[in-house]
């Protein structure tokens, strides 16, 4: 290839041309010192000159012969259709004329662009106005000198992707432990300035369909540097689409766009309170409303398709952690902090007025990653349009029993493989909108780690049904009946601790008789036997000591 280029250059050089360029300069002297296109002969562009003097009228030079790709792109753009020729931006003989956008479009008002300052500060013109070859977001984190951070801290579940919850937790960690770090976000877009679209890309291209800025990468540079893929919605918030709106919670309940979007003004709580009056008044009085999130939309996205009940613990935490970024470091007193946040949401503790429940769901373990089973997967096994509740519960009661779930899981394991199991989370199921409780007085493990924990009285099975998740109340406990492996991950420490009720039952009040009751205690017997032994040993030591004193030994 280079040889061909050299041959082309040699042949096209002024020396070899039919009419040497030097002859042209005799009359057109000022082009002798041209700074552009200086390596090609005049007659390469000014066609039709066979001898000097040449004809009065020559054909207009075209750029197409050499720059055909650019010309092609250009003819698709708005500038061509407005009649702009190449030489209106490019000086053919002289220095390049400022071909940048601002030279013709200084101070564009961008009147209709929401969050104008933010958009203009981060994006270049082609990002919205051009056809893009490549675009993406790069977030570069530079740690303070000498600091290191392992990849698994960013991508906690190890799936190679940092989701919003993981990224927020990571930023929180940076704030707390890596003072002096730098986080630079770059929204880069490469396109050709020649192909500018008649209309700018609409918001949805970035905020909904993600045809632009569809990927984000976090580059963490410390002693060694590495990259992590990030869900782009971390950096570019998602907007609802009109076509999806009927599927949203509001849409399903018959709320129309214009019910809330009364004017062009930003929506305020006054709009929400029209329907959510009671919740609003509870929240309004709380400290959280006065100091932190002052409007409903600070936490709630009114265009969500999922109902709050369908959010798992991690998704719920992601809402709070948008502001409370340091939630992990603030809970360092909690042993196995990260593990707790896999099973709890913030309001499990910080909203005493809310009702909490233990919710069970079927999950699949794949490469150490847990995924809740979706309806589609179950449909494939149980047939189209299956009503799962009736599969699990033959008696058509409003409840499912622990053993019914157990039987169903054993069945599922046979059909879908050994990786299926029952998982559980402790979630708020009836929300009381006061989150002002900053620090629970009782930082007490036994609030939850005890057989008397309140959520054992309120247990639900989240069942994926067509288009919706349903909450089915669960009767009886699930944990002790089945082999350890099935409910491995839902054992709470301290669950098997002897209680007063157990003791009373043992002392003759159990209907099935004390020995049978003792047998049903399982590991709780350790407490019972342990305490009895301790008491016996102390008593015998006291007796021994007393005797020693009596016989003066």
């Amino acid at each position, binding site marked *: 290839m280079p040889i061909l280029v050299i041959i082309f250059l040699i042949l096209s050089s002024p020396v070899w041309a039919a009419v040497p360029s030097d002859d042209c300069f005799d009359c057109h002297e000022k082009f002798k010192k041209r700074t552009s296109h200086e390596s090609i002969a005049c007659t390469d562009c000014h066609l039709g000159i066979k001898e000097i003097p040449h004809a009065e009228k020559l054909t207009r030079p075209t750029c197409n012969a050499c720059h055909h790709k650019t010309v092609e792109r250009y003819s698709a753009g708005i500038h061509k259709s407005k009649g702009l020729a190449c030489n209106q931006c490019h000086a053919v003989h002289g220095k390049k004329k400022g071909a940048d956008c601002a030279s013709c479009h200084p101070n564009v008002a961008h009147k209709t662009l929401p969050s104008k300052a933010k958009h203009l500060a981060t994006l270049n013109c082609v990002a919205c106005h051009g056809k893009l070859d490549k675009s993406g977001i790069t977030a570069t984190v530079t740690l303070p000198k000498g600091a290191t951070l392992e990849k698994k801290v960013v991508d906690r579940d190890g799936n190679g992707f940092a989701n919003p919850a993981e990224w927020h937790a990571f930023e929180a960690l940076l704030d707390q432990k890596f003072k002096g770090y730098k986080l630079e976000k770059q929204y880069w877009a490469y396109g050709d300035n020649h192909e500018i679209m008649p209309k700018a890309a609409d918001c949805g291209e970035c905020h909904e369909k993600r045809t632009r800025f569809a990927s984000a990468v976090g580059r963490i540079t410390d002693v060694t540097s590495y990259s992590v893929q990030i869900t782009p919605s971390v950096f570019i918030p998602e907007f609802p689409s009109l076509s999806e709106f009927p599927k949203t919670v509001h849409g399903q309940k018959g709320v129309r766009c214009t019910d809330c979007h009364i004017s062009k003004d930003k929506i305020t709580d006054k709009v929400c309170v029209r329907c959510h009056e009671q919740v609003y008044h509870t929240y309004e009085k709380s400290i959280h409303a006065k100091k932190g999130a002052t409007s409903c939309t600070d936490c709630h996205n009114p265009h969500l398709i999922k109902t709050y009940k369908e959010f798992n613990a991690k998704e719920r935490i992601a809402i709070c952690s948008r502001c409370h970024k340091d939630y992990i470091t603030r809970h360092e*007193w*909690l*042993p*196995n902090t*990260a*593990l707790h946040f896999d099973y709890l949401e913030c309001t499990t503790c910080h909203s005493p007025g809310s009702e909490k429940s233990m919710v069970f769901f079927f999950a699949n373990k794949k490469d*150490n990653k847990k995924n809740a089973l979706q309806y589609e997967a179950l449909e494939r096994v149980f047939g189209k349009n299956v009503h799962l509740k009736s599969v699990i519960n033959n008696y058509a009661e409003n409840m499912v029993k622990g053993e019914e779930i157990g039987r169903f899981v054993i069945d599922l394991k046979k059909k879908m493989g050994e990786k299926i199991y029952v998982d559980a989370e402790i979630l708020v199921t009836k929300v009381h909108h006061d989150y002002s409780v900053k620090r629970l007085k*009782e*930082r*007490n*493990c*036994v609030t939850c780690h005890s057989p008397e924990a309140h959520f054992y009285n309120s247990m639900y099975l989240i069942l994926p049904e067509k288009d919706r998740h349903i909450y089915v109340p669960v009767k009886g406990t699930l944990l002790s009946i089945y082999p*350890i*492996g099935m409910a*491995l991950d839902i*054992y709470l*420490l*301290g*669950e*098997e*601790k002897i209680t007063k009720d157990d003791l009373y039952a043992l002392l003759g009040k159990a209907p099935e008789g004390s020995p049978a009751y003792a047998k049903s205690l399982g*590991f709780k017997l*350790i*407490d019972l*036997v*342990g305490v009895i*032994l*301790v008491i016996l*040993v*102390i008593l015998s*030591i006291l007796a*021994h*000591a007393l*005797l*020693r004193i009596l*016989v*003066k*030994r």
Partner: protein
Amino acid sequence: MKKVFLHTLTIRIWHWINALIVIALMVTGIQLRVPEVEGIARQMAIWIPEYSMAVLIHKYIGYAMALSFLFWLIYIFASGSFRTHYLPRPADIPILGKQTFYYIIGVFQGSENPFSPTAEGKFNPLQKIAYGSVMLVITPLIVVTGVLFSDIFFFRSVIDRLGGVRLLDALHVLASYLFLLNLIVHLYMCTMGHHIFDHIKAMILGFEEMPDESPSKH
């Protein structure tokens, strides 16, 4: 009276550090299991750490316990004192019965202790059984289960293979009851020297004063 050297300086220092560790772990452990203790202690104006603090203390002193145990394990084998003092021998068997008889009946009749500790063997057969099981079975069990608990995420695969958090919890609690039982007996038995504080003195000074031939009568 003769002086019998029983405990090296290393073991004496280790013993008292370990004692502090055990006390801290016992107190916080009981508090974690029975949080009502906190309220009772407050009423009796006894200082007791706040629950969340107790959690942290238990965790970090737990690490200290693990280190302390490791140190002891290495020391006991490297110094050869495992062979000298802990390893059961055939000669122990006949003394076993005598020793038990002495603790239950003999001591009240004023008979002499069938075993007297020397630098060549400081534990009687019963002590070998007790200390051996505490230090080589119960403590390792408690330390290993405890360390596994410190980061369930990290040790998940190991925990799953062992039978899950539930079994781990049961083992940790079981081991701590056994430990507590042994500790109670240990605290009482240390008063069984010729003088009530003789054994404790020995653990501070290293040697114990023994009567030359026959035991002195009190």
